[in-house]
């Protein structure tokens, strides 16, 4: 995984609340056996009509969305299914961060493991972002700060170990494997 320190990007805004992972990645695309190429299916049922043509007024189909790395979404994005295909699709499309006032547990955990920063901000900051789509935002993972172009900057919470892994481009699998002795000792203790 590539290390992440700073994300500087315009935002795409999807203000709806409770955007579930069935919308982010509909179930019919889950029959894949790889994690590649899911970006083209991202929000498929909101993005394409029944003929498969892009729906012009959907935000991801607009010219301004091209190259945006930050998705600002309504409260409780990522609720529902545990499918990791949702963050895989967002990442493949080009997103590197999702900002909301609340992010569902499993989606947040899956995102952190795939270089997609789940960022929870206060209601006022969130409202400003909702009201200013396309704003140039800077996310500083090392400082745990989101800076808005209006000069304000807020701190965001992020699990310390996940942050360490993201900053250094290491994954949790390696860390867990390094715990082998402790795991073996635990197994032995329980068996006795």
């Amino acid at each position, binding site marked *: 995984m590539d290390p992440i320190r700073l994300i500087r990007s315009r935002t795409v805004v999807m203000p709806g609340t409770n955007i*579930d992972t069935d919308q982010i990645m509909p*179930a019919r695309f889950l*029959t894949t056996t790889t994690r590649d190429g899911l970006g083209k299916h991202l929000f498929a049922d909101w993005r394409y009509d029944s003929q498969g043509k892009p729906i012009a007024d959907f935000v991801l189909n607009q010219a301004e969305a091209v190259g945006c790395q930050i998705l600002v979404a309504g409260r409780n994005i990522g609720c529902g299914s545990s499918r990791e295909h949702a963050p895989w699709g967002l990442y493949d499309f080009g997103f590197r961060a999702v900002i909301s006032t609340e992010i569902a547990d499993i989606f947040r*955990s899956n995102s952190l493991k795939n270089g997609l920063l789940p960022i929870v901000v206060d209601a006022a900051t969130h409202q400003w972002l909702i009201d200013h789509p396309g704003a140039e935002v800077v996310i500083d993972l090392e400082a745990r700060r989101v800076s808005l172009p209006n000069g304000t900057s807020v701190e965001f919470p992020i699990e*310390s170990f996940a942050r360490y892994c993201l900053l250094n481009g290491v994954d949790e*699998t390696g860390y867990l494997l390094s715990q*082998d002795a402790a*795991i073996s000792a635990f*197994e032995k203790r329980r068996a006795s």
Partner: protein
Amino acid sequence: MTPTTLFDKIWAEHEVVPETTDTPAVLYIDLHLTHEVTTPQAFSMLRSRGLKVRDPKRTFATMDHSTPTLADQLFGRVPIKLESAARQIEQFDVNCREFGIELLGVTHADRGIVHIIGPELGLTQPGKTIVCGDSHTSTHGAFGALAFGIGTTEVGHVLATQCLLQRKAKSLAVNVEGDLPSGVTAKDLILAIIQKLGVAGGTGSVIEYRGSTIRGLSMDERMTICNMSIEAGARAGLIAPDETTFAYLKGRRHAPQGADWDKAVAHWRTLVSDPGARFDHELHIDASKLKPMITYGTNPGMSVAIDETVPVITGDAVYAKAIDYMGLTPGQRMLGQKIDTVFLGSCTNARLSDLEAAAAIIKGRHVAKGVTFLVVPGSQQIKRQAEALGLDQIFLAAGAEWRESGCSMCLGMNGDLVARGAYCVSTSNRNFEGRQGIGSRTLLASPAMAAASAVAGCVADPRPLLA
């Protein structure tokens, strides 16, 4: 000693390395359930790193999500219609064989929905940590197990190390008191709880369902409750094990036997929240006031009692979009809303007692003209049990379809779909946009209401049909 919760106790028993400010806990996982959809990329990771499965005996596999429910496809008399699903099923078979994992393959007599067969085979037991790449893993909490859904990267973690990195969640007590009125089911209770909590009310928490109402529920009913914990955003749902739990498990294939059974039960009896244990949050529900529930919107929190109307909410664009998607009108009654499809199935409501409840209503009656009624048992065992009781004949005589087990119409990825714009009264767990197929409109309800609605051809109250 400080009184602790059931969640605290299970957590403490599985801490390989406790959490610190800098690092999450290394939590040991007793049972890892797997299926064909959320695992292929995890096995690929093992291969690319040259890793083995640490303890293949702790991982158990079945086919359910993309697996067809039509017998001809399932038993290979005709090819599986969805090519990508067929490839996925084949790949899972290869993966399980290569890594030495026991798989109940497509034609196995004990195959079924992963959250139905875990308990059925006695794999699910009190005090265990149980994970699966599926959010409805919360179902197993009905046995007093700490059970939660994980992503595919974490599936890889468990395969490779039998552990997960976890921060401890908060605790939420949902206290339910009072007798459920006649005709009001566990499904109605959990829909009412989610309505009260909201779909994010449980985020960051493990719910423990408590109180006299919960104690009085059967294991099937408890599973329905815990299954939908995730629909309130909760990490997991828990119910303390008791005599009902032990009676269910005794004699099941993977349950402890003989002296081991007595030892296990003695331990299981300690798995309760101590008197005075503190929860981070509490919610109180009076079950005696509840009525049959039905959803009208596009998330499981958007529900009303059967005699209520779709709420009138102005100035809320998200609400307006949901109601527009559903093709409903604020202020209208749900009772009498015309429907096209009825689905009785899923890990929420496809156990034998669910099929019996629906059969009791539909017996001697007929599915309304123009309505498709799909009945999908939760496992092949349940299917055989139902057939031994003649339930299949009751459904078939009424004009319903009787299928092989699987996730089926709960999610549109195995060929069982609700048509665009069609209304489906469904005993499943999610009414998200497009969940049952592109443009599908899902109305979540109990098996009894599903059967009553199939007969009426519209949303119907099951209570008048309960003889």
